[in-house]
C-alpha cells in the first residue's frame, strides 16, 4: 500500500557519531519525567505491598474457602456482561452513526456520549428508585392494568447481576463508542470504500473491515470501561453484587484488616496486569496500522426505512438507559427539593471546588501522559531499541486498576512516609498529607491511564517518517515532541483532558478520604446526603455534577468530529484511546 512504499522509500537517518549535549539532556529529561510519573503512580502500590507483607494472620484459608471463589465468579460474570454490553453497544452505535444515514443520526452522534456525565453509583440509585415496585414505572403499570398487588407484576429485579450489568454498561459504553467512532471516522474511509466497491455491504463490511480495523481502539476503550467496572464499589455494592472489590472493602472496613485488603487488591492488580499484557500481545501480533487521511470521512450509506428505524432504536435505547431515565429522575427529585427548600447554599462552592481540583489534576496529568506516550513511541519506532517506554506506559495503568478507596489509603500511607522523611530536613518543607495537593496527586495516580492510553493510540497513527524527517534536520527529541507531535496529537490530547476532567469530577472514595478540612465537592456533598437518606438534597448535587459535565461533553463531541475544510496540516481526529 501507499504508506508501506513511503516507509521503504525513506530511510531513517543514521545516528551521528557524537550526540550534541543538549540532545542527550532533552531525551534524558523526558525519560526521567516518564519514570517519575510512574513512580508517583507506584507510590500507593508500594505502600499496599508493605501492608500486604505484614501478613494477615489466618485470613486466606477463610477467603479461599468462603469468599474468593464466589467473588471471582461474580466479578468474571460482571466483567463479561459489561464487556459484551459496552463493546456491542459502543461499537454498534459508532458504526451506525459513522457510516450510515438514518433519522436522528446527527443527534445520536452526540447524545451517545452523554452517559459519561453520570457516575455509576448515581445511576444505580436512580434506577432502583425508578424500577422499584413502589416507584413510578411499576405503580403506573399497576394502575394501567388495574392490579393492586405489587407482587402481581414480576418485573426483573435491578438488585442483581443482570441489573448491575445494565446500569454499569449503559453508563460506560461511551468509552468504546468514542474510540470506535474516532477509528471509523479517521482511518477507514479508503478501505470501506474499497470494500463497498467489491460488493461487501452491511454486516459483512462491518465484520470483515470495520471491526478488525477499529479493534485496537475498541479494545483500549473497553479496557477503560472494564477497569472502571472492576474497581467500582458504589454501584456493585448497592445492587448486591459481591465482586472482588467489594470483598476488599469488607476485609478492610468490617474486619479492620488493611493487610488482607491490600493482599486481595494486589492480587486483582496482578490479574489485570496479566490480562493487559495478553491484550497487548494480541494487538502486537495484529499489525496493520493505517495512516490518517485528511477528509477521510467515510461515505455514509442511506439505510432503507425499516433498517433506519431499527438503527434509530439501537441508538436510542442505550441513551435512554444511560442518561435520559436516570437524569430525568434526578431532575424530578432535585426539583422537588429545590421547590421546598431552595438551592443548597453551598452549591456554588461545591461546584468551584470540584472544578478547581479536577482542572488542577488535568493540568498535571496531561504533560505526564504526553511524556509517557512519547517514551512508548520511541520504543515503537522501527529503528530504535526498546528503552522501557512501553513498559512505563503500561505501568501507568496500575492506579486505574486499583479500587479508588484502597488506592487512596495506599497513597495516604505513602504520603505519611514521605512526610516523615521530609520532616527530618526541617520545618520549611510543608507536609503533603491533608492538603489539596495530596488530593490532586490521588487523581493523578487514578487517572493517568486515561490520556496515556489515548495518546498511545493516537501516536500509532503518526508515521515514523515524520520523526525521521525531523531528526534528519537535527531536531532533538524535545523539539520533535513539541513541534511535530504535539500539533498532531492536539485533538487526542484535548479529548483526553476532557475525559480526565469528567472522571476527576465524579471521583468519590479518594476525594472523601484525602481532602482538606472544610472542603466539599459535588461528589462528596451528594454522597453525604445520600448516605443520610435525604436523597433529594443529594439529587441537587448529582444534577449539578451532570450539568457541569455537559459543556465538557459538548467540547468532547465537537473535538471528535472531523473538520470539513482541508488544510495543509494533517489532522488526526483521534478522540479516544
Amino acid at each position, binding site marked *: 500500500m501507499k504508506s508501506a512504499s513511503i516507509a521503504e522509500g525513506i530511510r531513517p537517518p543514521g545516528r551521528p557519531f557524537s550526540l550534541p549535549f543538549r540532545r542527550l539532556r532533552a531525551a534524558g529529561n523526558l525519560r526521567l519525567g516518564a519514570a517519575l510519573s510512574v513512580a508517583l503512580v507506584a507510590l500507593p502500590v508500594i505502600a499496599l505491598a508493605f501492608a500486604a507483607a505484614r501478613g494477615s494472620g489466618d485470613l486466606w484459608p477463610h477467603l479461599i474457602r468462603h469468599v474468593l471463589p464466589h467473588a471471582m465468579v461474580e466479578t468474571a460474570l460482571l466483567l463479561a456482561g459489561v464487556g459484551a454490553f459496552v463493546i456491542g453497544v459502543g461499537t454498534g452505535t459508532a458504526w451506525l452513526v459513522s457510516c450510515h444515514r438514518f433519522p436522528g443520526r446527527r443527534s445520536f452522534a452526540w447524545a451517545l456520549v452523554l452517559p459519561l456525565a453520570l457516575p455509576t453509583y448515581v445511576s444505580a440509585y436512580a434506577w432502583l428508585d425508578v424500577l422499584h415496585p413502589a416507584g413510578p414505572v411499576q405503580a403506573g403499570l399497576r394502575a394501567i392494568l388495574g392490579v393492586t398487588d405489587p407482587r402481581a407484576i414480576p418485573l426483573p429485579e435491578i*438488585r442483581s447481576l443482570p441489573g448491575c450489568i445494565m446500569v454499569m454498561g449503559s453508563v460506560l459504553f461511551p468509552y468504546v463508542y468514542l474510540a470506535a467512532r474516532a477509528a471509523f471516522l479517521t482511518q477507514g474511509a479508503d478501505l470501506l470504500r474499497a470494500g463497498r466497491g467489491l460488493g461487501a455491504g452491511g454486516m459483512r463490511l462491518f465484520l470483515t473491515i470495520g471491526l478488525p480495523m477499529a479493534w485496537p481502539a475498541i479494545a483500549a476503550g473497553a479496557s477503560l470501561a472494564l477497569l472502571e467496572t472492576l474497581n467500582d464499589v458504589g454501584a456493585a455494592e*448497592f445492587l*448486591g453484587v459481591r465482586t472482588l472489590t467489594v470483598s476488599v472493602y469488607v476485609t478492610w472496613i468490617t474486619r479492620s484488616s488493611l493487610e488482607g485488603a491490600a493482599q486481595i487488591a494486589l492480587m486483582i492488580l496482578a490479574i489485570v496486569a496479566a490480562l493487559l499484557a495478553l491484550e497487548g500481545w494480541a494487538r502486537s501480533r495484529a499489525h496493520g496500522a493505517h495512516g490518517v487521511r485528511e477528509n477521510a470521512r467515510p461515505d455514509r450509506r442511506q439505510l432503507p426505512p425499516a433498517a433506519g428505524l431499527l438503527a434509530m432504536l439501537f441508538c436510542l435505547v442505550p441513551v435512554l438507559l444511560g442518561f435520559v431515565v436516570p437524569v430525568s429522575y434526578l431532575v424530578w427529585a432535585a426539583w*422537588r427539593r429545590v421547590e421546598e427548600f431552595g438551592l443548597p447554599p453551598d452549591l456554588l462552592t461545591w461546584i468551584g471546588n470540584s472544578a478547581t481540583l479536577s482542572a488542577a489534576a488535568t493540568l498535571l496529568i496531561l504533560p505526564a501522559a504526553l511524556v509517557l506516550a512519547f517514551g512508548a513511541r520511541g520504543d515503537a519506532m522501527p529503528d530504535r531499541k526498546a528503552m522501557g517506554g512501553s513498559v512505563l506506559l503500561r505501568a501507568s495503568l496500575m492506579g486505574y486498576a486499583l479500587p479508588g478507596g484502597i488506592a487512596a489509603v495506599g497513597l495516604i500511607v505513602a504520603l*505519611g512516609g514521605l512526610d516523615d522523611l521530609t520532616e527530618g530536613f526541617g520545618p520549611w518543607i510543608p507536609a503533603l498529607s491533608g492538603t489539596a495537593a495530596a488530593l490532586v496527586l490521588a487523581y493523578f495516580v487514578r487517572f493517568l491511564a486515561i490520556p496515556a492510553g489515548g495518546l498511545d493510540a493516537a501516536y500509532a497513527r503518526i508515521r515514523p517518517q515524520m520523526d525521521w524527517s525531523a531528526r534528519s534536520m537535527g531536531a532533538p527529541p524535545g523539539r520533535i515532541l513539541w513541534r511535530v507531535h504535539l500539533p498532531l496529537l492536539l485533538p487526542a490530547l484535548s479529548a483526553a483532558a476532557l475525559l480526565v476532567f469528567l472522571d476527576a469530577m465524579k471521583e468519590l472514595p479518594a476525594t472523601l478520604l484525602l481532602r482538606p478540612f472544610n*472542603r*466539599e465537592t459535588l461528589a462528596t456533598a451528594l454522597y453525604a446526603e445520600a448516605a443520610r437518606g*435525604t436523597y433529594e438534597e443529594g439529587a441537587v448535587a448529582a444534577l449539578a455534577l451532570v450539568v457541569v459535565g455537559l459543556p465538557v461533553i459538548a467540547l468532547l463531541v465537537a473535538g471528535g468530529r472531523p473538520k470539513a475544510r482541508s488544510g495543509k496540516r494533517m489532522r488526526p481526529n483521534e478522540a479516544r484511546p
Partner: protein
Amino acid sequence: MTRPKKAVLFALSLLLAPVAAHAAEVNLYTTREPGLMRPLTERFTQETGIQVNTVFVQGGLAERLTAEGSRSRADVAMVVDVGNLMELVDRELTQPVQSKALEEAIPANLRDPQGRWFALSTRARAILASRERIPEAEAAKLTYEDLADPRFKGRVCIRSGQHPYNTALFSILMIEHGEAWLRDYLTKLKANLARRATGGDREVARDILAGLCDVGLANTYYAGLMLSGRGGEEQKRWGEAVRVVLPANETAVNISGGAVTRHAPNRAEAVRFLEFLASPEAQSIYANGNFENPVRPNAPVNEIVAGFGPVTPRNVSLPEVAARRAAASRIVDEVGFDR
C-alpha cells in the same frame, strides 16, 4: 521560558498553602454526615467562639490518622459503630481524657473508664414489620431470633450482613448464644431472605411497602427520619408502611461516639467540644436532628422515636461487641449470607 515554570510553582504553592490559622479552633475528622454535624458545630462556635474545621470521611479515618501521626491536625475523631470506635482505641489513635462534665453526662457503660472513648448517642436496631401483613399482636412479640423462623421464609429484607450495623447485632447475639448458634441462625435467616442482602436500612421499609417482604431490620433513627418527612413525601410513605418493634429487654443497641486524638494540637478545645456534644443542648440536636437516642440519661427523645416505645438494651459490654465483630463477619461469609 521561566514564566510557565513560575506559574506552576505559584499554583503548587497555592495548593500547599496552609489554611489561615484562627485564634481558637478545633479540627474534626468525622464519619458522621455534614447534615447532622453542621447544626452541632455551628452552635458550638456560637457559644464558645471556637472555630470547627471538619472533614467528613467514610472509610479510612483510622488510616489517615495513623499515616499523619504526630503531624495530624485532627483533634477529635467521631465515628458511628462501636467496632469503628474501638478500632481507634486499639490502634492507640486516641488519648485519655478526664472530664467531670463528660463523666456526669454519660453513663459508665457508655464510655471508657480511662476516657479514651465516649458514646455520644445510642442507636437501637429495630425489627420492622409490615403494618398491613403482620398483625399488631404478632409484631409486638417479635424478636431477632424469630426472623430466622421458617414461617418468615421469603419474607425477610435486610441490608448486607457485612455492614457494621449487622455485624454488631450478630456479635451481640453471639455473645448470648455462642458461635455455633449464630452459624445456624444466619443459615436460617439467609434462607428466609426475600432478596439479596443489600442496600440500606431505608430500603427495607420501602421493600415492605412494595410488598417484596414483610419483616426486616433497621436502626430506629432511619424510621424517625422517614416518618418526619424530611427525606421527602415518598420516604414518609415507606415509614408509614412499617411498625417499629424494639424487642423487650433485649434490644441490640449500637453507639456513635467520639474521642480526643492522640496528637491533638488543640487538646483543651477538643475536650470542650466533646463536653458540648454531651450537653443537653447538643444531645437534643442528636435526638431531633438525627432521631438518635441521647446518651444523657434524662435528655428527651424525639417524639416520633418515643412513639416506638422505650429502648431496653441487651446487657452486653460494648468493647466485647467490638471484639467479636471479626468472628461474626467470618460467619456471615461462611454461610454465604450476602450471596
